[in-house]
């Protein structure tokens, strides 16, 4: 009996040792597995950080100041915003949306070249004031981007609008300080026109129908968004053949200048 108890104890010790050894083995294996997993993750983190840094550096290199300048010179032509394009305070911002009073002087307007090849379009010529009507020269050729080879037609026309009538400035003198500003104002006006055109129309066609129809003209158009409403009225050709591709970059282009720019009327018609 005593022998069997001793043997049992021995067996018990052996079993305990075996369990311990097994546990140690399992623990070691798990620890090793976890450690290699951690190392793998660390390697991944290091590789990803290096890759991120590499890509960031490549981006910084491709978008370096010299590269951006070269692009701007060739393709975009952005200029720094002028003093007239900044707003001082909220009150000045609110002034932009103020409707014209009953006895207010007629706002300064800008003549516009039509889309037709022979100078002014019939609409614009018939409705424009003295300066625009006096212009009867040839249309301005479309500028072609040297990179894409595509004409940047609308941008050119808006610039042409500024300079068209016998070199006279058509904008109010207190608003134009330099030629650069005049250019950006023209961009803004064109962008406003494009926006008005877009907002003033609802796409009623199905998926295959690309033609947009003009939506109803809001009765308070001159108050809510006079530029948009007027522009949509003056540009029938553009309504028929909207060019979303052309309008998109124009909007993007005018973005820097739009923050503080006083909206200029872009039509040749009197306000309603």
């Amino acid at each position: 009996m005593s022998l069997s108890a001793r043997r049992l104890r021995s067996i018990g010790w052996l079993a305990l040792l075996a369990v311990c050894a097994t546990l140690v083995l399992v623990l070691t294996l798990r620890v090793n597995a976890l450690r290699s997993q951690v190392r793998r993750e660390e390697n991944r983190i290091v590789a990803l950080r290096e890759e991120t840094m590499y890509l960031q550096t490549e981006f910084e290199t491709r978008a370096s100041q010299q590269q951006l300048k070269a692009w701007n010179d060739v393709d975009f032509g952005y200029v720094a915003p002028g003093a007239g394009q900044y707003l001082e305070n909220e009150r000045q911002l609110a002034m932009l949306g103020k409707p014209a009073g009953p006895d207010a002087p007629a706002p300064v307007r800008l003549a516009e070249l039509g889309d037709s090849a022979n100078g002014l379009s019939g609409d614009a010529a018939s409705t424009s004031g003295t300066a625009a009507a006096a212009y009867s020269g040839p249309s301005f050729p479309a500028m072609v981007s040297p990179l894409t080879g595509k004409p940047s037609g609308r941008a050119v026309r808006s610039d042409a609008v500024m300079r068209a009538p016998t070199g006279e400035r058509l904008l109010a003198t207190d608003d134009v300080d330099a030629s650069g500003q005049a250019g950006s104002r023209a961009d803004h006006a064109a962008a406003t026109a494009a926006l008005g055109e877009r907002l003033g129309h609802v796409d009623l066609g199905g998926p295959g129908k690309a033609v947009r129809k003009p939506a109803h003209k809001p009765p308070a158009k001159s108050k809510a968004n006079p530029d948009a409403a007027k522009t949509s009225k003056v540009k029938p050709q553009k309504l028929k053949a909207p060019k979303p591709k052309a309008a998109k970059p124009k909007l993007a282009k005018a973005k820097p200048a739009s923050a503080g720019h006083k909206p200029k009327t872009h039509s040749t018609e009197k306000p309603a």
Partner: protein
Amino acid sequence: MNAIAPPLPAAFAGRASFSGTGRAQGERGQVAQLRARSLLTAKTRVLVVAALFGLGTATALARIAQIGLFDRAPGMRSMTDRLLPPRGELTDRSGAPLARELPAYALWFNPKAFGEGKNASQGAISPLVRTPEEVARALMGVFPDADYADLVQRLKSDRPSYLRRRVLPEDANKIYALGEPALEFPRETERFYPQGSLAAHAVGYVDENGQGHVGMEEVLNARLIDPAQRGQPVALALDMRVQGALEDELGRAMGESNAKGAAGIVLDVETGEVVALASLPAFNPNRGDLAYNALVFNRVSNQVYELGSVVKPITIASAIDAGVVTDLSVRYPSGKPLSIDGRLIHDSHSFGASLNVPEALVHSSNIVTAQVADKLGAPALRQTMLNLGMSERPYIELPARGFPIWPKGNWSRITNMTVSYGHGMAISPLHLACAYAAMVNGGIWRPATLMKVEPGHAVQGRRVFKAATSARMRQLLRMIVEVGTGKKANAVGFRVGGKTGSAEKPGKHGYQKSALIATFAAAFPMDHPRYVVLASIDEPQGTQATSGQRTAAWNAAPAVGRLIPRIGPLLGVVPDAKRDVDISDVAPLVASGDGE
């Protein structure tokens, strides 16, 4: 076991010689011995096994303790070490990288790409698929600046060598497309400057041995390679956008006036931070092997010249500060050249019989400025120049700092008068920019720095001018731009004030009529000056673009006039056409007119 075994044969031998009871006793004794031996054997075995188990258990416990207590930290350290760059990063003030370590591609020629072989001279197979000449020609298509003969020689050699380092990924792809297994692309960590040559003189470059040169790479070399600090990028005071605009406009002015070089600086008047520093033409820091050439010469901090009329406002400020000029309407004769000690001081052309001080600045009259300096006295003007640091190398971290040519000893009367209009003393554009900052910021001179200064940590500086003098100078400088020689720098809404200066460069036989240094030093906005902008054009020529003129009013001033609208909004200066410094009390003193 072996110790027990030998007696056994003896026992069995004895067994053969006895019989009867003796035999029985002998057998029992043998059994007892056998049992005792077996017991001993078993005990020994148990002991050994127990010892083994004990050892195993102890080892396991020790291992558990090691894993639990000590094994985690080394793993963490290793990743940190791996992410630590070999050299610290340099960034601009907004964190855009200026210099960083990058695993770039190198182009390595391995002649043993096809295994060991004899070289070409021994008639063995070349490691190249095509002939070395064809491969060299293809490489020349990718790297037009490479040396064809050198490439051919390397490709024919049986020794491995670098064909080029810092290869762009797209160039590497082109070479990879050649399908030459002997051309390999090992990735090596290299110093890379994403902005290329932009701000090259301020940043510097790193050579193949990892040592920084020229700019802040040299100044911060120890800091950038210190393992304890190199993990954190170092922010410089530079703003890359401003730097880009400055270099662009200076480059344009250089091109338009067909000049040899140009220097420019944009300096924060309150902190002395150098927001942009340009010396053109610049070098390419990405080619460390080629970077060290004549172009590393820094025209902003290292080049000293007599800068001419841009020094006049300092003289006038000194005179106002000393109480010598109290009434700006006092007129000084200016009709004929001034003869002092047998030397003539004259103006570029006559501005009339007499001029007051504002007119002298607007028309840039040497004669009147010299008279004001004479009235002020040499010691006072000298002391002002000393206070502005004109007798020492410019204060900036850069290693390239030129020593000014400073009239030694007590100044004579003629020295005093010539220094008053910017001759007889050669200083760097950086000296002048710091002096202008002191002149417009309320009168405090501070050293320039390329390190970013946290708000509220600007150097205290020293007072050189009274605040009232500074306010008066702001009016006068603004007027020079409004009605004087700096009209072309009058950016609408930015309230620019400044002074032009066109000085002849000294040559072997006196001043050279054909070589000018045209400088325009400006500050904006003048109602609360924030930045000094200085542009200096080296040897401009009269061209169609500059209306045939080569003075600062036609090259440096227009460059500043174009630059300020570009950088003003970036630096937080909003243009406002309705705001300006009040010059109503000095404006009536000046009749409109042009001078140099």
